[in-house]
């Protein structure tokens, strides 16, 4: 440890030097690995790389949706909504139950007497699943804020965070007790069977661009664009930005601060719900603990892009998805360790660039 009378400035500069040295070493290693696996000693063909990239982008778009929720809430309340991933889980269950219910409604035709509603009207079914999933999740977001966060608005900072952790564990366990601990198969309409898709010949093999993946990606991009317009162009978005800037002044300008905070939670809950339904449709399993790991990864994406920054969260999500699916191959480590990679990135970003890729310059107070 440094002695006490050392000047502060000097410490910062040593820290910077360490940062630069580590950065150069790490960058050099990646370049060397890339050279190794692409040119010197190729293990995977171009089709495999494309497969990894597609999987990464699809996963990343889901992370982006969840990350936006973290960013919106953090921007306004400066707190991590720890239960956000579990709201995603609630949305996934919402979609799951819609599909299960529609599966049991039979709409027999002459050609196929066993036809059910889910397969007869797949588009309506998917829309219904999203509507229900999003509304349930948005509602949970609203109640979460009302019950667990609003009374603690002026409390010391640790208090709402602990309350959020409690809320997160509560939601997980309530779901486990209600729906059971087993993993359930998310039954899609036959049209959207997982693994089916357009086949693209690349290099030596074919790459399948799955329908569910395309649905997930396109839908999340549409939602993200709509959200960006909502925040930048509408009255409600302006009020949200004002509250994020300064609550007291916003209140003086006639903005209902509590109302805006509620709306923010509804909005972020809805986004998490949509992400949850996509998760179910694309990856096909729902269970009570589903939200935890994507939640932390989405938080990582939000931090990566600069927390409080909307485009940053989207980019961060896509980047993290890419890293997760390409990273193990690039770095030559076990695929089991992809979660370690994601957490490692979180730690590295927080240490070396806590403002994120696009982040505003935060004062040390906020970090």
């Amino acid at each position, binding site marked *: *440890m*440094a002695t*006490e009378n050392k000047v502060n400035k000097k410490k910062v500069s040593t820290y910077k030097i360490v940062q630069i040295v580590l950065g150069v070493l790490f960058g050099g290693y990646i370049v060397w690995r890339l050279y190794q696996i692409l040119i010197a000693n190729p293990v995977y063909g171009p089709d495999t790389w494309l497969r990894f990239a597609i999987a990464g982008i699809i996963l990343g778009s889901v992370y982006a949706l969840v990350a936006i929720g973290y960013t919106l809430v953090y921007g306004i309340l400066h*707190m*991590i909504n720890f239960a956000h991933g579990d709201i995603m889980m609630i949305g996934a269950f919402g979609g799951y*139950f819609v599909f*299960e219910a529609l599966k049991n409604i039979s709409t027999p035709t002459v050609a196929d007497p066993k036809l059910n509603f889910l397969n007869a009207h797949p588009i309506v079914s998917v829309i219904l699943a999203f509507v229900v999933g999003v509304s349930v999740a948005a509602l949970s977001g609203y109640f979460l804020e009302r*019950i*667990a966060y*609003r*009374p*603690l*608005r*002026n*409390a*010391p*900072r*640790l*208090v*709402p*965070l*602990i*309350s959020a*952790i*409690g*809320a*997160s*564990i*509560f939601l997980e*366990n*309530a779901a486990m*007790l*209600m*729906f*059971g601990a087993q993993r359930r198969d998310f039954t899609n309409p036959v049209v959207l069977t997982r693994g089916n898709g357009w086949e693209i010949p690349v290099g030596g093999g074919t790459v399948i661009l799955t329908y569910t993946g395309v649905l997930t990606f396109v839908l999340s991009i549409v939602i993200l664009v709509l959200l960006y317009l909502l925040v930048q162009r509408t009255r409600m978005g302006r009020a949200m930005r004002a509250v994020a800037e300064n609550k007291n002044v916003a209140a003086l300008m006639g903005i209902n601060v*509590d109302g805006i905070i509620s709306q923010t939670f509804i909005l972020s809950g809805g986004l998490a719900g949509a992400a949850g339904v996509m998760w179910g449709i694309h990856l096909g399993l729902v269970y009570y603990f589903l939200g935890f790991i994507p939640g*932390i990864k989405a*938080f*990582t994406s939000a*931090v990566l892009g600069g927390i409080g920054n909307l485009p940053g969260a989207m980019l961060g999500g896509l980047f993290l998805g890419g890293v997760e699916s390409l990273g193990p191959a690039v770095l030559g*480590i*076990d695929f*089991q*360790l992809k*979660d*370690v990679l994601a*957490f*490692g990135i*979180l*730690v590295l970003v*927080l*240490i070396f660039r*806590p403002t994120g890729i696009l982040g505003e310059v935060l004062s*040390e*107070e906020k*970090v």
Partner: protein
Amino acid sequence: MKTQIKSSLNAGITFGIVSLFLYLIGFTTTASQIIQNLFKLKPASIVLGMDSLVFSFSLFIGLIGVWAGVNQARSQKGQPFGTVLMSATLTGLTHGLIVALVAYITGSLNASGVKMNTYLSQLLPASVKLFLFNQTSVLGALSQLAFLTLTALLGGAVTYGLTVSNVFGKLADAWHSLWKQVNSVPAVARFRASPYFSSVMYGLLLLVMLLVPLRVGQYWNYTLGTVGIYVLLGLGLNIVVGLAGLLNLGYVAFFAIGAYTVALLTSPAPHGLVWNFWLVLPLGILAATLVGVLLVVPVLRMRGDYLAIVTLGFGEIIRILSKSDALTWLTGGPKGVNNVGGPVLFGWVFNDVGYLYLIFLSVLLAIFVTRRLQNSRVGRAWESMREDETVSRAMGINILRHKVLAFAIGAAFAGLGGVLFAARNQFTGPEDHNMMVSINVLSAVIVGGMGSIPGVIAGAFVLKGLPEILRELENYRVLAFATLLVVMMLVRPAGILPASRRKFEHEKGRAVPGEEGAK
């Protein structure tokens, strides 16, 4: 009038949701069984013309109904009798309507043979029948409605009576005056003021700790040992979170390192190193401390939320690494390490009593260290750092050094806990070190009272000891902790047995703004 109707409806809806939630998680059935056992009623015997389980269930749901009435009546303090009664009844009616509706729907679905428990796993046919008092769905729903309304009415009336006659106020006064009288007896007062008072109390406690392990048997020794290890972990986390104010959600990582150190160095399985336990014990503590220091150095500049997430990520990294294929050669992978060696003292192989003594000894040591630190210059520096980092830096406190010290000592306690845990269980594996351990310890610290040693001990007993006594509630344990965490933060953020300085701060902080949100 209008506001009263609105508040009654609100309360009714809230209670309706709570009752339905308890129904959906299967708690109504479990609670009925617990009541049945409590009164030692035989299954399928008849009590008051009802099956004993149905009787227990009506007792349980009746309590909720009464509670709804009491709650509503208490919010109507100072209103005339009629208004209070009407308000309570309206609450009960709303509550009953919601419950009856769901009871009817689930009942008729159940009667027509739909298997609801494929989706809602707790709605077994028996539970649904019980929720309808074992009646048909129409009759059962109507009885629910009537029963909940009547109990709410009863609760309202009783509350009104108690409020008007001020029974509780008088009882409290009587208790206070009695306590005062006892204390004013010269002998008692002299004894309480004498310097030997606390020594005598501690002596008694020590005696109990010496005798208990010999008397209670193997099962309770095991349980008490677990509680003791949690007290140890709690004391360590208390230094990090309670004193220094650094929220560490990856505390289990240090626990895991202690456990793996002792496991890998004393077990014959993966490496064949069979070292002496007494040699490995300090090594485990040292390893955990070292990792604590290594972890804290990069995160020194972070505060609050970021630190929480980074430490959470770190804990997960340790767990994933410990069970990954890549490190199986080192850690034994997902199967863990068996045959961990235990302590031997002068030829005596430690049994359950020995382990319990060892754990008690460690806890005492930890309490001693914590107390000395808390009241020292270092402890005061931690507390000032917790309150305001910038100001305490301006006061000349070396923030970096104190953060590292807090993490290192916290990690050392956790390492000791891990060593004892692995040695006692003779096994350690990745699933012993999942995130729930961190959360449990954190809950113990927070529920008991951050920064307070008796609080941590009380918290560990509530979290690890109570569930052993109430075995039927095993499934609801984690849910209850989670609820407790939130409720504790809303109602009493300083904890059950708060540290005096912290209590003062929270009360001071609450009095000024927070009122408008706290309804």
